[in-house]
Protein backbone atom coordinates (compact mmCIF):
# COMPACT_ATOMS: atom_id res chain seq x y z
CA UNK A 1 0.00 0.00 0.00
CA UNK A 2 1.36 3.38 -1.03
CA UNK A 3 0.35 6.84 0.12
CA UNK A 4 2.37 9.65 -1.37
CA UNK A 5 1.69 13.33 -0.95
CA UNK A 6 4.64 15.48 -1.87
CA UNK A 7 5.96 18.37 -3.87
CA UNK A 8 9.18 18.61 -5.83
CA UNK A 9 10.55 21.89 -7.13
CA UNK A 10 11.86 21.38 -10.66
CA UNK A 11 13.67 23.98 -12.79
CA UNK A 12 10.67 24.79 -15.01
CA UNK A 13 7.67 23.78 -12.88
CA UNK A 14 6.66 22.33 -9.52
CA UNK A 15 5.66 18.70 -9.37
CA UNK A 16 2.67 18.10 -7.10
CA UNK A 17 1.82 14.53 -6.24
CA UNK A 18 -1.09 13.01 -4.37
CA UNK A 19 -1.26 9.25 -4.83
CA UNK A 20 -3.00 6.53 -2.89
CA UNK A 21 -2.68 2.94 -4.07
CA UNK A 22 -3.59 -0.20 -2.17
CA UNK A 23 -3.20 -2.82 -4.86
CA UNK A 24 -3.42 -3.15 -8.61
CA UNK A 25 -1.69 -1.05 -11.22
CA UNK A 26 -1.51 2.72 -11.18
CA UNK A 27 -0.69 4.09 -14.63
CA UNK A 28 0.99 7.48 -14.84
CA UNK A 29 0.47 8.85 -18.29
CA UNK A 30 1.58 12.08 -19.87
CA UNK A 31 3.93 13.69 -22.37
CA UNK A 32 7.71 13.63 -22.06
CA UNK A 33 8.94 16.00 -19.38
CA UNK A 34 5.64 15.99 -17.46
CA UNK A 35 7.34 14.65 -14.33
CA UNK A 36 6.36 10.96 -14.49
CA UNK A 37 9.84 9.54 -13.97
CA UNK A 38 10.55 12.09 -11.24
CA UNK A 39 7.56 10.73 -9.29
CA UNK A 40 8.98 7.19 -9.52
CA UNK A 41 12.43 8.39 -8.53
CA UNK A 42 11.06 10.28 -5.51
CA UNK A 43 9.10 7.22 -4.38
CA UNK A 44 12.15 4.98 -4.89
CA UNK A 45 14.49 7.39 -3.11
CA UNK A 46 16.62 8.25 -6.14
CA UNK A 47 15.46 11.87 -5.80
CA UNK A 48 14.36 13.76 -2.71
CA UNK A 49 11.03 15.61 -2.68
CA UNK A 50 11.12 19.24 -1.58
CA UNK A 51 8.29 18.68 0.85
CA UNK A 52 5.73 16.03 1.83
CA UNK A 53 5.37 12.41 2.89
CA UNK A 54 5.68 8.99 1.30
CA UNK A 55 4.35 5.98 3.19
CA UNK A 56 4.63 2.36 2.15
CA UNK A 57 2.48 -0.04 4.18
CA UNK A 58 1.91 2.78 6.69
CA UNK A 59 5.65 3.12 7.23
CA UNK A 60 7.10 6.52 6.36
CA UNK A 61 9.99 6.22 3.90
CA UNK A 62 10.09 9.99 3.46
CA UNK A 63 8.71 12.75 5.62
CA UNK A 64 9.93 16.32 5.44
CA UNK A 65 8.15 17.16 8.72
CA UNK A 66 9.81 14.35 10.68
CA UNK A 67 13.14 14.46 8.85
CA UNK A 68 12.76 10.89 7.55
CA UNK A 69 14.49 9.85 4.33
CA UNK A 70 14.99 6.08 4.28
CA UNK A 71 17.87 5.10 1.94
CA UNK A 72 16.94 3.50 -1.39
CA UNK A 73 18.29 0.10 -0.43
CA UNK A 74 16.04 -0.11 2.63
CA UNK A 75 12.78 0.90 0.94
CA UNK A 76 12.00 -2.54 -0.54
CA UNK A 77 10.89 -1.09 -3.83
CA UNK A 78 11.47 -2.85 -7.15
CA UNK A 79 12.38 -0.55 -10.03
CA UNK A 80 12.38 -1.49 -13.70
CA UNK A 81 14.18 1.12 -15.78
CA UNK A 82 13.23 2.21 -19.26
CA UNK A 83 16.55 1.03 -20.69
CA UNK A 84 16.46 -2.06 -18.40
CA UNK A 85 19.81 -1.09 -16.75
CA UNK A 86 20.97 -4.71 -16.65
CA UNK A 87 24.52 -5.33 -15.47
CA UNK A 88 26.32 -5.96 -18.78
CA UNK A 89 29.17 -7.98 -17.27
CA UNK A 90 26.90 -10.48 -15.51
CA UNK A 91 24.89 -13.37 -16.88
CA UNK A 92 21.10 -13.31 -16.73
CA UNK A 93 21.18 -15.54 -13.65
CA UNK A 94 23.72 -13.34 -11.85
CA UNK A 95 21.72 -10.22 -12.75
CA UNK A 96 18.59 -11.78 -11.27
CA UNK A 97 20.39 -13.06 -8.17
CA UNK A 98 22.24 -9.79 -7.52
CA UNK A 99 19.71 -8.27 -5.15
CA UNK A 100 18.22 -11.44 -3.69
CA UNK A 101 17.94 -11.01 0.08
CA UNK A 102 20.08 -13.32 2.16
CA UNK A 103 18.29 -16.24 3.76
CA UNK A 104 16.68 -15.22 7.01
CA UNK A 105 16.33 -11.55 6.09
CA UNK A 106 12.84 -12.01 4.71
CA UNK A 107 11.28 -15.14 6.13
CA UNK A 108 7.80 -15.09 4.61
CA UNK A 109 8.71 -16.14 1.07
CA UNK A 110 11.29 -18.62 -0.09
CA UNK A 111 12.04 -17.30 -3.54
CA UNK A 112 13.76 -19.58 -5.96
CA UNK A 113 15.63 -18.12 -8.91
CA UNK A 114 14.60 -21.00 -11.18
CA UNK A 115 10.92 -20.45 -10.41
CA UNK A 116 11.13 -16.75 -11.18
CA UNK A 117 13.10 -17.34 -14.38
CA UNK A 118 10.63 -20.00 -15.49
CA UNK A 119 7.64 -17.86 -14.58
CA UNK A 120 8.99 -15.11 -16.83
CA UNK A 121 9.96 -17.67 -19.50
CA UNK A 122 13.67 -16.85 -19.41
CA UNK A 123 14.95 -20.02 -17.74
CA UNK A 124 16.80 -21.02 -20.93
CA UNK A 125 18.69 -17.69 -20.94
CA UNK A 126 20.27 -18.00 -17.51
CA UNK A 127 23.84 -18.28 -18.81
CA UNK A 128 23.53 -15.60 -21.48
CA UNK A 129 24.78 -12.03 -21.15
CA UNK A 130 22.48 -9.01 -21.67
CA UNK A 131 23.94 -8.24 -25.12
CA UNK A 132 23.04 -11.76 -26.25
CA UNK A 133 19.30 -11.44 -25.65
CA UNK A 134 16.46 -9.46 -27.26
CA UNK A 135 14.75 -6.33 -25.92
CA UNK A 136 11.72 -8.29 -24.70
CA UNK A 137 13.96 -10.80 -22.96
CA UNK A 138 15.94 -8.00 -21.33
CA UNK A 139 12.68 -6.58 -20.02
CA UNK A 140 11.78 -9.96 -18.49
CA UNK A 141 15.24 -10.18 -16.89
CA UNK A 142 14.80 -6.68 -15.44
CA UNK A 143 11.41 -7.72 -14.05
CA UNK A 144 12.82 -10.93 -12.60
CA UNK A 145 15.69 -9.02 -11.01
CA UNK A 146 13.32 -6.55 -9.38
CA UNK A 147 10.97 -9.29 -8.15
CA UNK A 148 13.76 -11.37 -6.63
CA UNK A 149 14.23 -8.68 -3.98
CA UNK A 150 10.65 -9.40 -2.82
CA UNK A 151 9.58 -5.76 -3.12
CA UNK A 152 6.48 -4.30 -1.51
CA UNK A 153 5.95 -2.01 -4.49
CA UNK A 154 7.07 -2.30 -8.11
CA UNK A 155 7.86 0.78 -10.20
CA UNK A 156 7.98 0.41 -13.96
CA UNK A 157 9.42 3.31 -15.96
CA UNK A 158 8.13 3.01 -19.55
CA UNK A 159 9.07 -0.66 -19.54
CA UNK A 160 7.53 -1.46 -22.90
CA UNK A 161 8.35 1.66 -24.90
CA UNK A 162 11.36 0.23 -26.75
CA UNK A 163 9.63 -2.99 -27.82
CA UNK A 164 7.86 -3.97 -31.03
CA UNK A 165 4.06 -4.23 -31.01
CA UNK A 166 3.86 -8.05 -30.70
CA UNK A 167 6.33 -8.27 -27.84
CA UNK A 168 4.64 -5.31 -26.22
CA UNK A 169 1.20 -6.96 -26.31
CA UNK A 170 2.59 -10.19 -24.88
CA UNK A 171 4.38 -8.37 -22.07
CA UNK A 172 1.32 -6.26 -21.29
CA UNK A 173 -0.63 -9.46 -20.62
CA UNK A 174 2.25 -10.86 -18.60
CA UNK A 175 2.42 -7.72 -16.46
CA UNK A 176 -1.26 -8.06 -15.62
CA UNK A 177 -0.77 -11.73 -14.77
CA UNK A 178 2.31 -10.95 -12.71
CA UNK A 179 0.51 -8.30 -10.70
CA UNK A 180 -2.32 -10.73 -9.92
CA UNK A 181 0.17 -13.42 -8.86
CA UNK A 182 2.47 -11.15 -6.87
CA UNK A 183 -0.29 -9.09 -5.20
CA UNK A 184 1.81 -5.96 -4.75
CA UNK A 185 0.98 -2.51 -6.15
CA UNK A 186 2.64 -1.55 -9.45
CA UNK A 187 3.16 2.00 -10.68
CA UNK A 188 3.58 2.05 -14.42
CA UNK A 189 4.83 5.09 -16.30
CA UNK A 190 3.82 5.30 -19.94
CA UNK A 191 3.20 7.96 -22.55
CA UNK A 192 0.73 5.68 -24.32
CA UNK A 193 -2.86 6.40 -23.21
CA UNK A 194 -4.15 3.10 -24.66
CA UNK A 195 -1.55 1.16 -22.70
CA UNK A 196 -2.47 3.07 -19.55
CA UNK A 197 -6.15 2.27 -20.06
CA UNK A 198 -5.42 -1.38 -20.72
CA UNK A 199 -3.13 -1.92 -17.73
CA UNK A 200 -4.16 0.67 -15.17
CA UNK A 201 -6.65 0.09 -12.38
CA UNK A 202 -6.11 3.77 -11.71
CA UNK A 203 -4.84 6.32 -14.19
CA UNK A 204 -3.24 9.63 -13.39
CA UNK A 205 -2.65 12.07 -16.21
CA UNK A 206 0.25 14.42 -15.68
CA UNK A 207 1.03 17.65 -17.42
CA UNK A 208 3.88 19.90 -16.30
CA UNK A 209 3.80 18.40 -12.83
CA UNK A 210 0.06 18.71 -12.25
CA UNK A 211 -2.26 15.73 -11.83
CA UNK A 212 -4.85 16.60 -14.46
CA UNK A 213 -7.23 13.74 -14.58
CA UNK A 214 -7.72 10.74 -12.34
CA UNK A 215 -9.72 7.75 -13.36
CA UNK A 216 -10.54 4.51 -11.64
CA UNK A 217 -11.09 2.08 -14.48
CA UNK A 218 -12.55 -1.35 -14.19
CA UNK A 219 -10.64 -3.32 -16.72
CA UNK A 220 -12.56 -5.41 -19.20
CA UNK A 221 -10.12 -8.26 -19.15
CA UNK A 222 -10.43 -8.55 -15.38
CA UNK A 223 -14.20 -8.70 -15.61
CA UNK A 224 -13.95 -11.50 -18.18
Amino acid at each position, binding site marked *: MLNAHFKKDLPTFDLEVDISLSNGILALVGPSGAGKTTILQCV*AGLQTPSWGEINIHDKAVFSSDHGIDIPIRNRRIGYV*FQDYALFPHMTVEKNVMY*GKPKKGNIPNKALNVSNVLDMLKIGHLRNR*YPNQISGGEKQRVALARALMTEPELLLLDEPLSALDQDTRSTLQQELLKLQTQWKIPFILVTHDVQEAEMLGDQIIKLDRGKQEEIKGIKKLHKAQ
Partner: protein
Amino acid sequence: MIDLRGLDFSPLLISLRAVIIATIVTFFLGIAAACFVSGYRGKFKGLIDGVLTLPLVLPPTVVGFLLLLLFGKNGPLGKLLMAIGMTVIFSWPATVIAASVVAFPLMYRTVRSAFEQIDQNIINAARTLGVSEWKIFWKITIPLSWPGVAAGTVLAFARALGDFGATLMIGGNIPGKTLTIPAAIFFAAESGDMRKALVWVILIFVISLIVMTLMNYWTDYQSKMTATIGRR
Protein backbone atom coordinates in the same frame (compact mmCIF):
# COMPACT_ATOMS: atom_id res chain seq x y z
CA MET B 1 78.29 -6.31 -28.40
CA ILE B 2 77.86 -4.40 -25.18
CA ASP B 3 79.92 -5.73 -22.30
CA LEU B 4 77.83 -5.88 -19.11
CA ARG B 5 80.65 -7.05 -16.90
CA GLY B 6 81.38 -4.69 -14.05
CA LEU B 7 78.08 -2.83 -14.45
CA ASP B 8 76.39 -1.91 -11.18
CA PHE B 9 72.79 -3.11 -11.48
CA SER B 10 71.56 -1.33 -8.36
CA PRO B 11 69.70 1.39 -10.38
CA LEU B 12 67.56 -1.38 -11.90
CA LEU B 13 66.59 -2.74 -8.48
CA ILE B 14 66.02 0.75 -7.04
CA SER B 15 63.85 1.74 -10.01
CA LEU B 16 61.84 -1.51 -9.91
CA ARG B 17 61.25 -1.19 -6.16
CA ALA B 18 60.14 2.44 -6.49
CA VAL B 19 57.94 1.77 -9.52
CA ILE B 20 56.22 -1.34 -8.14
CA ILE B 21 55.42 0.28 -4.79
CA ALA B 22 54.40 3.57 -6.44
CA THR B 23 52.09 1.76 -8.89
CA ILE B 24 50.40 -0.12 -6.04
CA VAL B 25 50.05 3.07 -3.98
CA THR B 26 48.67 5.14 -6.89
CA PHE B 27 46.33 2.28 -7.88
CA PHE B 28 44.46 2.47 -4.58
CA LEU B 29 44.85 6.23 -3.95
CA GLY B 30 43.85 7.04 -7.55
CA ILE B 31 40.72 4.88 -7.35
CA ALA B 32 39.78 6.33 -3.95
CA ALA B 33 40.30 9.93 -5.15
CA ALA B 34 38.39 9.28 -8.40
CA CYS B 35 35.54 7.72 -6.43
CA PHE B 36 35.40 10.68 -4.05
CA VAL B 37 35.57 13.40 -6.72
CA SER B 38 33.03 11.74 -9.07
CA GLY B 39 30.55 11.51 -6.22
CA TYR B 40 31.27 14.99 -4.79
CA ARG B 41 28.75 17.66 -5.79
CA GLY B 42 30.08 20.58 -3.72
CA LYS B 43 31.43 23.91 -4.97
CA PHE B 44 35.04 22.93 -4.31
CA LYS B 45 35.02 20.15 -6.91
CA GLY B 46 37.02 22.21 -9.43
CA LEU B 47 39.59 23.18 -6.82
CA ILE B 48 39.98 19.61 -5.49
CA ASP B 49 40.35 18.27 -9.04
CA GLY B 50 42.91 20.98 -9.80
CA VAL B 51 45.01 20.16 -6.74
CA LEU B 52 44.94 16.43 -7.51
CA THR B 53 45.94 17.03 -11.14
CA LEU B 54 48.64 19.60 -10.38
CA PRO B 55 51.63 17.17 -10.37
CA LEU B 56 50.76 16.38 -14.00
CA VAL B 57 51.15 19.95 -15.21
CA LEU B 58 53.89 21.23 -12.92
CA PRO B 59 57.52 20.67 -13.97
CA PRO B 60 58.92 17.62 -12.12
CA THR B 61 61.55 19.83 -10.46
CA VAL B 62 58.78 21.98 -9.00
CA VAL B 63 57.02 18.86 -7.69
CA GLY B 64 60.34 17.73 -6.23
CA PHE B 65 60.93 21.11 -4.66
CA LEU B 66 57.48 21.09 -3.02
CA LEU B 67 58.13 17.57 -1.73
CA LEU B 68 61.44 18.80 -0.38
CA LEU B 69 59.61 21.55 1.52
CA LEU B 70 57.06 19.04 2.80
CA PHE B 71 59.42 16.21 3.77
CA GLY B 72 62.54 18.26 4.59
CA LYS B 73 63.71 18.37 8.19
CA ASN B 74 61.86 21.67 8.69
CA GLY B 75 58.80 20.61 6.69
CA PRO B 76 55.53 19.59 8.43
CA LEU B 77 55.70 15.94 7.38
CA GLY B 78 59.47 15.83 7.76
CA LYS B 79 59.20 16.96 11.39
CA LEU B 80 56.48 14.41 12.04
CA LEU B 81 58.59 11.60 10.58
CA MET B 82 61.67 12.80 12.46
CA ALA B 83 59.71 12.43 15.70
CA ILE B 84 59.33 8.71 14.99
CA GLY B 85 62.92 8.40 13.89
CA MET B 86 62.40 8.40 10.10
CA THR B 87 64.14 10.52 7.49
CA VAL B 88 62.74 10.47 4.00
CA ILE B 89 64.97 12.90 2.12
CA PHE B 90 67.84 11.15 0.29
CA SER B 91 66.63 7.71 1.33
CA TRP B 92 64.97 5.01 -0.78
CA PRO B 93 61.41 5.91 0.35
CA ALA B 94 62.02 9.29 -1.33
CA THR B 95 62.19 7.54 -4.71
CA VAL B 96 58.83 5.86 -3.96
CA ILE B 97 57.20 9.13 -2.83
CA ALA B 98 58.43 11.06 -5.87
CA ALA B 99 57.32 8.33 -8.28
CA SER B 100 53.90 8.05 -6.57
CA VAL B 101 53.22 11.79 -6.64
CA VAL B 102 54.08 12.25 -10.32
CA ALA B 103 52.18 9.08 -11.33
CA PHE B 104 49.07 9.75 -9.23
CA PRO B 105 47.27 12.27 -11.51
CA LEU B 106 47.37 9.89 -14.47
CA MET B 107 45.71 7.14 -12.47
CA TYR B 108 43.22 9.51 -10.87
CA ARG B 109 42.13 11.22 -14.10
CA THR B 110 41.85 8.05 -16.16
CA VAL B 111 39.83 6.23 -13.50
CA ARG B 112 37.62 9.24 -12.84
CA SER B 113 36.80 9.49 -16.52
CA ALA B 114 36.00 5.75 -16.58
CA PHE B 115 33.73 6.08 -13.52
CA GLU B 116 31.85 8.99 -15.05
CA GLN B 117 31.18 7.06 -18.23
CA ILE B 118 29.19 4.36 -16.42
CA ASP B 119 25.45 4.63 -17.08
CA GLN B 120 24.04 6.12 -13.86
CA ASN B 121 20.88 4.02 -14.25
CA ILE B 122 22.96 0.86 -13.80
CA ILE B 123 24.25 2.18 -10.47
CA ASN B 124 20.75 3.31 -9.48
CA ALA B 125 19.35 -0.10 -10.45
CA ALA B 126 21.89 -1.72 -8.12
CA ARG B 127 20.85 0.68 -5.34
CA THR B 128 17.18 -0.26 -5.69
CA LEU B 129 18.16 -3.92 -5.27
CA GLY B 130 19.00 -3.30 -1.64
CA VAL B 131 22.77 -3.85 -1.76
CA SER B 132 25.40 -1.75 -0.03
CA GLU B 133 27.40 1.00 -1.75
CA TRP B 134 30.53 -1.03 -1.03
CA LYS B 135 29.21 -4.05 -2.93
CA ILE B 136 28.05 -1.80 -5.78
CA PHE B 137 31.55 -0.32 -5.98
CA TRP B 138 33.39 -3.63 -6.16
CA LYS B 139 30.86 -5.66 -8.16
CA ILE B 140 29.53 -3.02 -10.56
CA THR B 141 31.64 0.15 -10.70
CA ILE B 142 35.11 -1.44 -10.80
CA PRO B 143 34.28 -4.22 -13.34
CA LEU B 144 32.51 -1.75 -15.64
CA SER B 145 35.35 0.74 -15.50
CA TRP B 146 38.05 -1.92 -15.66
CA PRO B 147 39.54 -0.86 -19.04
CA GLY B 148 40.00 2.66 -17.61
CA VAL B 149 41.49 1.31 -14.37
CA ALA B 150 43.93 -0.86 -16.34
CA ALA B 151 44.88 2.02 -18.66
CA GLY B 152 45.43 4.28 -15.63
CA THR B 153 47.66 1.65 -14.03
CA VAL B 154 49.79 1.34 -17.18
CA LEU B 155 50.13 5.11 -17.48
CA ALA B 156 51.00 5.44 -13.79
CA PHE B 157 53.61 2.69 -14.11
CA ALA B 158 55.16 4.36 -17.15
CA ARG B 159 55.25 7.77 -15.51
CA ALA B 160 56.73 6.37 -12.29
CA LEU B 161 59.42 4.51 -14.21
CA GLY B 162 60.34 7.57 -16.23
CA ASP B 163 60.52 10.10 -13.42
CA PHE B 164 63.78 11.95 -13.15
CA GLY B 165 63.31 15.50 -11.84
CA ALA B 166 61.18 14.93 -8.75
CA THR B 167 63.17 11.84 -7.71
CA LEU B 168 66.46 13.69 -8.08
CA MET B 169 65.18 16.62 -6.00
CA ILE B 170 64.19 14.60 -2.93
CA GLY B 171 66.14 11.37 -3.43
CA GLY B 172 69.36 12.68 -4.89
CA ASN B 173 71.63 10.35 -6.86
CA ILE B 174 73.26 8.19 -4.25
CA PRO B 175 74.51 5.02 -6.02
CA GLY B 176 73.06 1.87 -4.50
CA LYS B 177 70.54 3.90 -2.52
CA THR B 178 68.53 6.40 -4.57
CA LEU B 179 70.08 6.33 -8.04
CA THR B 180 67.31 5.20 -10.42
CA ILE B 181 67.70 4.22 -14.09
CA PRO B 182 66.72 7.64 -15.54
CA ALA B 183 69.20 9.35 -13.20
CA ALA B 184 71.87 6.75 -14.02
CA ILE B 185 71.38 7.50 -17.76
CA PHE B 186 71.76 11.23 -17.17
CA PHE B 187 74.89 10.97 -15.05
CA ALA B 188 76.51 8.35 -17.29
CA ALA B 189 75.89 10.51 -20.38
CA GLU B 190 77.06 13.63 -18.57
CA SER B 191 80.34 11.98 -17.61
CA GLY B 192 80.83 10.75 -21.19
CA ASP B 193 80.22 7.07 -20.42
CA MET B 194 77.92 6.54 -23.40
CA ARG B 195 78.24 2.74 -23.24
CA LYS B 196 76.82 2.65 -19.74
CA ALA B 197 74.08 5.15 -20.65
CA LEU B 198 73.14 3.00 -23.66
CA VAL B 199 72.86 -0.13 -21.51
CA TRP B 200 70.40 1.64 -19.22
CA VAL B 201 68.48 3.10 -22.16
CA ILE B 202 68.09 -0.37 -23.69
CA LEU B 203 67.10 -1.84 -20.33
CA ILE B 204 64.44 0.76 -19.56
CA PHE B 205 63.17 0.42 -23.13
CA VAL B 206 62.84 -3.37 -22.76
CA ILE B 207 61.18 -3.16 -19.32
CA SER B 208 58.66 -0.58 -20.54
CA LEU B 209 57.85 -2.56 -23.67
CA ILE B 210 57.41 -5.85 -21.78
CA VAL B 211 55.16 -4.32 -19.12
CA MET B 212 53.05 -2.35 -21.63
CA THR B 213 52.62 -5.39 -23.88
CA LEU B 214 51.72 -7.73 -21.01
CA MET B 215 49.29 -5.18 -19.60
CA ASN B 216 47.66 -4.72 -23.00
CA TYR B 217 47.19 -8.47 -23.48
CA TRP B 218 45.85 -8.81 -19.96
CA THR B 219 43.41 -5.92 -20.41
CA ASP B 220 42.22 -7.40 -23.72
CA TYR B 221 41.72 -10.76 -22.02
CA GLN B 222 39.84 -9.17 -19.12
CA SER B 223 37.69 -7.15 -21.49
CA LYS B 224 36.81 -10.27 -23.46
CA MET B 225 35.98 -12.12 -20.28
CA THR B 226 33.82 -9.41 -18.80
CA ALA B 227 32.83 -6.18 -20.49
CA THR B 228 32.75 -7.18 -24.13
CA ILE B 229 30.74 -10.33 -23.38
CA GLY B 230 28.04 -8.36 -21.77
CA ARG B 231 28.35 -4.81 -23.03
CA ARG B 232 25.33 -3.68 -24.96
